[in-house]
């Protein structure tokens, strides 16, 4: 009996305020979206409140808005934070809901001021965009928490000691809770990832040039890709080369280095940092540096070869046969340190007693590695190989910086970029993107299925 009573008290005090906080969370998220994506006046999306505020802050002449509009981003971000805080810490829920309520009142006051004094000092002359109305409605929603929050507060201070439970808004069913938390990120994911993906699928069936109205051309973009386009074949072959090198060379080198540096050695930390340091460089810097190294006349590589007495110095990037391997080598240089760090972390997680047991059992070094260490590193190896595959499929930066796809170094990502932004064949570039997406999905799907299987096992 006592337990049930406790439960009821908790529900009385906490859960109905959590409902208020959920409303606050939704309203604040919506407020944020309205602030960034919806037109504050007129119908043009570029005229959103965020742009107007940015114009105002950077002193663009002719901006017709006052600083008071800054209440919108502040209220939306603070609202989300407060609502989450309130939900996660139910004992603070009431305070959070009250503060959200105050934010709502402020936003509502701002909206009403804009509405009632359109030519006054408070704001610009023209209102009436979807963003404004959404903001107004959201502000009303935030204020509507009053219906939940204030009675709860009154109850707490004893003004309204025992009101019947049916007077309250129904509490949020617990099974909805995760979905409500998921809603804001899912919305963003929908806008930025899912929608563009499907837009690309559609685009790949058109001949859009970036300017005219897209015309539907069926599968002819794909037909051209797979039948006559030599550059596409070249790019595909180069991606396969990249992939073949990436899942073998940096992987084994990284593993080897990790095994070496896993033992205590003098200056080990220094060497580890040395191998890892290329990773902090951007691809643009790596591309520039390696292009200098490859310079046949002044570069370090040919200078070294020359001083060793090599007579016929290679032209590196200038040599059509060598160029793609030169670019891949630069990428490998970066990747080795990355793989090494992953394996080092994996080695640290191996239970030393297993290794000791193997040694006691008389395993030699090779068998220790082959039969104990390597199987224990299997999860890391999976991650490393998947990362290598994905990195090699999205290879772009180095090619763009070092050759811009010339010298038969074209890869799919750069080819897509050139078709889209140099040749303005958006539809054709979309078809390349779809092919790249398809290839990537094979590997990503494999990886995800393994992950999911692992999770189900636990």
């Amino acid at each position: 009996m006592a337990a049930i009573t406790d439960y009821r008290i908790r529900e009385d005090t906490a859960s109905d305020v959590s409902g208020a906080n959920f409303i606050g969370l939704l309203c604040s998220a919506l407020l944020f979206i309205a602030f960034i994506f919806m037109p504050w006046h007129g119908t043009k999306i570029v005229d959103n409140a965020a742009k107007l505020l940015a114009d105002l802050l950077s002193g663009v002449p002719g901006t017709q808005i006052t600083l008071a509009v800054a209440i919108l981003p502040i209220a939306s971000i603070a609202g989300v934070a407060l609502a989450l805080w309130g939900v996660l810490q139910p004992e603070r829920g009431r305070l959070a809901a009250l503060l959200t309520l105050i934010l709502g009142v402020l936003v509502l006051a701002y909206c009403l001021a804009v509405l009632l004094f359109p030519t006054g000092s408070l704001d610009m002359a023209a209102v009436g965009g979807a963003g404004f109305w959404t903001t107004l409605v959201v502000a009303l929603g935030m204020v509507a928490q009053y219906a939940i929050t204030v009675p709860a507060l009154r109850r707490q201070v004893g003004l309204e000691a025992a009101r019947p439970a049916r007077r309250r808004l129904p509490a949020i069913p617990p099974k909805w809770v995760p979905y409500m938390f998921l809603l804001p990120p899912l919305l963003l994911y929908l806008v930025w990832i899912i929608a563009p993906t499907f837009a690309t699928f559609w685009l790949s069936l058109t001949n859009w040039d970036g300017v005219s109205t897209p015309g539907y051309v069926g599968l002819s973009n794909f037909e051209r890709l797979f039948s006559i386009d030599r550059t596409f074949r070249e790019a595909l072959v180069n991606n396969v080369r990249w992939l073949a090198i990436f899942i073998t060379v940096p992987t084994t080198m990284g593993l080897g280095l990790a095994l070496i540096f896993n033992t205590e050695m003098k200056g080990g930390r220094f060497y580890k940092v040395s191998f890892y340091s290329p990773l902090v460089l951007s691809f643009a810097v790596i591309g520039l540096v390696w292009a200098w190294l490859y310079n046949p006349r002044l570069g370090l590589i040919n200078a070294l070869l020359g001083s060793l007495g090599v007579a016929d110095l290679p032209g590196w990037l200038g040599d059509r046969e060598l160029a793609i391997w030169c670019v891949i080598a630069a990428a490998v240089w970066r990747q080795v340190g990355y793989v090494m760090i992953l394996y080092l972390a994996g080695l640290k997680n191996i239970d030393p007693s297993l290794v000791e047991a193997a040694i006691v059992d008389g395993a030699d070094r090779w068998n220790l590695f082959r039969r104990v260490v390597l199987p224990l590193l299997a999860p890391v190896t999976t991650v490393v190989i998947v990362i290598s595959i994905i990195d090699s499929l999205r290879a772009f930066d180095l090619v763009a910086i070092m050759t811009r796809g010339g010298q038969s170094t074209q890869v799919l990502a750069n080819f897509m970029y050139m078709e889209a932004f140099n040749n303005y064949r958006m539809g054709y570039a979309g078809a390349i993107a779809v092919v790249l997406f398809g290839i990537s999905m094979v590997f990503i799907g494999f990886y995800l299925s393994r992950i999911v299987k692992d999770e189900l096992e636990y």
Partner: protein
Amino acid sequence: MSRLSRFGVVLTFALLVSMVAPVFAQGGPTYITYNSYNGDPIPRAFDEKIVGMWNEAHPEMPVEHSIVAHEDFKQAIRAYLTADPAPDVLTWFAGNRAQFFIDKGLIADISALWTDYGFAESYAPGFTALATVGDKQYFLPTSYYWWAVYYRPSLFEQAGITKVPETWEEFLGACDTLNAAGITPITIGARFRWPAAAWFDYLNMRVNGPEFHINLMLLKESYTDERVKAVFEKWNELFEHNCFIEDPAAYDWQEAIDPMVQGQAAMYLMGQFIKDSYPDDMEDDLDFFRFPIINPDVPVGEDAPTDGFFMSANARNLQGGLEFMAFLGSQEVQQMAFEELGRLPTRIDVDISGAPADVQKGIQLIQTADYVAQFYDRDTTPPMAEAGMDAFMRFWDDPSSVDQLLEELEAERLRNVEEAGG
């Protein structure tokens, strides 16, 4: 329940109030938007200075200026022009790159500059022609630079060449003489391919004349034409005479200056901007000559890429934009650009008497040409230029593959023609 319905009443009331609330019209534009690609420090400072001058003189109609790096600007241009509202005034290039947008109806007619602002009298006729499509003006050319064969007189002297080559035979002869003296005749940095396109432009204009060249650029002539093949035969003669440095594709255009500076290579077919990257203390030993004449029966064409401005058809502030363009194309601004940046004026009333000798010579070079082309990748469509430049480099690696390459280029040309028609 009642609380909910009360809330509903309030909400409905608020919505009703807001719907009948007057929506005030926005006044006319009070500023001009101007997007430019002058991201490099010196042109950027000049650009900002010009805008500052305008804003000081026109506080009632100031310019909102945004500067984007050159390459990014080129990628963003389509988004700019199709946006609504689009930026009012934009920097851009003459030739096919402007033509494309004009054909799509994205560029505003600025003929008023020629009729009402006196540009018809003050602009050189060749540049007015460059601005004109049909009988209307759309593009405001404001500056250009020349291309020529740059060379080091001291190296020519060292090899015993007394006079710059003016004919093809003299040119090949100079290559042989330089090779005999242990100097590579010509340097080129073709890692990003476009410097190779200059060779195609000049060889085609010298062999077949500028009219054929520009028709090829406009996709009206076939790449499998015998005349195009003849261009590659001339090009191959240069390979046979070992005129070029080894592995040209290993260097970008600036890196390829180095053999010249080191005294190991004598010539470089390059634009006037080579001076920006050439060591200042060695510029005394840097001169240029007109690309040698191959067929004396065809008119002389030169590459002189021209930069300027246009206004988007979607512009919010057409009148303000036009006035700002009149200022950008004015004698005052062109005189300043000439004196401070060495940009060659497109107006005939700019005083060039104070210019250094090489600039006078460059202006002479262009003014005595029968035809001025833009450059391969500005005269033809972007995909055609991309395919063409790739083919030039493949030809460089394997001159025997020319027939296959030209067939591929022809296929690309037909695809471009089809896209333009569709």
